[in-house]
């Protein structure tokens, strides 16, 4: 396309890509507290600000609870805001994290996903992000360093859309993506500027002496206007989440027109046209899954992939439709759902499949916990087992992919 501007090529890891995505989105205030495997992201932001590349105020505070609280104030005062955290940092951030979407604050926070302690570990896994999936933030998971960079401006576009007005977590896998280095194209600043347009983040609730208002009033209870008011807030929040589904698609399409990079906004269907069985993946594991599927296809085995990009709101109809024609499904998770003895994405997929008139057999596979690798060979095993499931072998599981590694 002639109107697509191609930017400078850099070679960087996922944390630097996220820092560039934030930098190009021109936040007014950044507050971050370092934690492995997010720490270098903080260092890149500090460097960009010190070098004058970024004009944001950088708040040095004493921990993640204050990080998000500071940004609440900034957002209510009209600032575009950014942060990033992982695992125990997210746990410490949880109290203001819970408040953020209810206040309808359109901030963007990267989760550099990491497994949760105990047992003690500091490495990648999606247990942290999956544990906060019900709090009402939008969650998008990235597959590559380039997708991390591109998804952060897209996330601002979604968050600040007047029909949405919700915070967005842009998630990238700790270690494999956070420290993995690849070729990344930097969009031109004016491309991002015209994509995002003028920000207006506090038209609904603000801290402004010229517009005095009570923010976050006491509601609820069982009498007076309480119950109806509380329901109105909750219904509005749910409506914003559902509105986000189409806004996310529009924002990705708009970004594609301006940069030439069209990322699948809700789910990506890979070789699904004639697929007889499907794998469901999320995040950076998907690249190895694609390689394994290509190898299986060379052997005449009709396998495809449905990759989840947007996990919250869950694209129920899209997932159900994509999986409606297959005879078996293998869902690969990088986290544990303790309540269902499965992976969390598996549980979501099962719920979406209820919308189909037929029952499709499915199995849960869990791998890549606490920094473990999910290799092409692991995925070849998932393909084999899912094909056997399609052939009538009973489901069991979850299958722990790294059990013998």
């Amino acid at each position, binding site marked *: 396309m002639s109107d697509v501007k191609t930017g400078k090529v850099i*070679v960087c890891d996922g944390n630097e890509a996220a820092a560039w995505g934030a930098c190009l989105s021109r936040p007014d205030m950044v507050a971050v507290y370092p934690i492995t495997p997010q720490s270098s992201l903080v260092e890149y932001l500090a460097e960009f600000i010190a070098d004058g590349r970024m004009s944001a105020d950088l708040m040095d505070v004493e921990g993640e609870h204050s990080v998000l609280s500071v940004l609440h104030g900034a957002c209510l005062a009209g600032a575009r805001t950014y942060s990033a955290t992982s695992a125990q940092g997210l746990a410490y951030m949880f109290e203001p994290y819970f408040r953020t979407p209810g206040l309808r604050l359109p901030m963007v926070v990267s989760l550099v996903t990491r497994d949760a302690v105990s047992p003690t570990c500091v*490495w990648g896994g999606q247990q942290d992000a999956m544990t906060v999936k019900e709090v009402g933030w939008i969650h998008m998971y990235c597959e590559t360093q380039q997708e991390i960079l591109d998804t952060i401006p897209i996330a601002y576009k979604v968050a600040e859309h007047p029909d949405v007005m919700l915070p967005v977590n842009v998630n990238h896998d700790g*270690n494999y993506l956070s420290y993995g280095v*690849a*070729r990344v194209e930097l969009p031109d600043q004016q491309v991002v500027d015209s994509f995002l347009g003028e920000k207006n983040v506090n038209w609904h609730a603000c801290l402004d002496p010229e517009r005095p208002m009570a923010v976050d009033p006491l509601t609820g209870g069982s009498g007076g206007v309480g119950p109806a008011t509380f329901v109105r807030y909750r219904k509005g929040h749910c409506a914003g989440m559902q509105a986000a589904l189409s806004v996310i698609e529009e924002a990705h399409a708009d970004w594609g027109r301006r940069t030439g990079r069209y990322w699948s906004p809700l789910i990506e269907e890979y070789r699904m046209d004639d697929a007889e069985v499907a794998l469901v993946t999320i995040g950076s594991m*998907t*690249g190895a899954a694609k*390689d394994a599927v290509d190898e299986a296809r060379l052997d005449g085995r009709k396998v495809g992939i449905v990759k989840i990009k947007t996990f919250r709101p869950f694209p129920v109809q899209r997932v159900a439709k994509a999986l409606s024609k297959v005879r078996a499904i293998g869902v690969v998770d990088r986290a544990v759902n303790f309540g269902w003895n499965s992976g969390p994405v598996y549980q979501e997929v099962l719920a979406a499949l209820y919308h189909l008139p037929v029952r499709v057999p499915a199995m849960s596979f869990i791998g890549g916990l606490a920094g473990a690798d999910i290799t092409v060979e692991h995925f070849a095993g998932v393909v084999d087992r899912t094909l056997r499931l399609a052939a009538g072998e009973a489901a069991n599981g979850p299958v722990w992919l790294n059990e013998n590694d």
Partner: protein
Amino acid sequence: MHEVRLHGRGGQGAVLASAILAAALVEEGRHVMAIPAFGFERRGAPVVAFLRLSDREIRRVTNIYAPDIVVVIDPTVVRAVDVFAGMPAGGTLVLATSKAVADLELPNHLNRVAVCDAIRIAMDIFKRQITNTIMLGAFAKATGLVSVESLEKALEQAHFRDAGLKQNIEAVRRGFAETTVVTLGKEAAA
């Protein structure tokens, strides 16, 4: 696609070297994926970094288990870890050592061995045993997969804590010039 595994010790810059090599390869139009193996890195402990390069897009974001090229930037780390683990037949070894190839104990499946007395060169240039950029020059000589010019361009983008750009450019050039490559038991270059 080539799969490269770099061995070093914490503090020598093996991970930074893999990132510089990645940048140089992209400069030449290749696709790369470089991932440091992770642990509680500390100065002196054995460290590993992985790098894939290809003329086509690389999708798998995984560690490397069967490297066709192994680069060892520390002469002593071969006593601590099996640097040949998983290496298929016909591979290339690029080793920092003061020994000649004939004096090394090597598995017989290697196709090519390159040696560079990187510690001596490092003491000349940096007055410290920092061998990472010297061994990038050795990698260029041994494999022909990247040019010294591209490595120099990549160095210009890198952030050095310990030594300046000029010294590191000299390190790459001397690493290239002072590496001996032996193919199939026959001296290929001096």
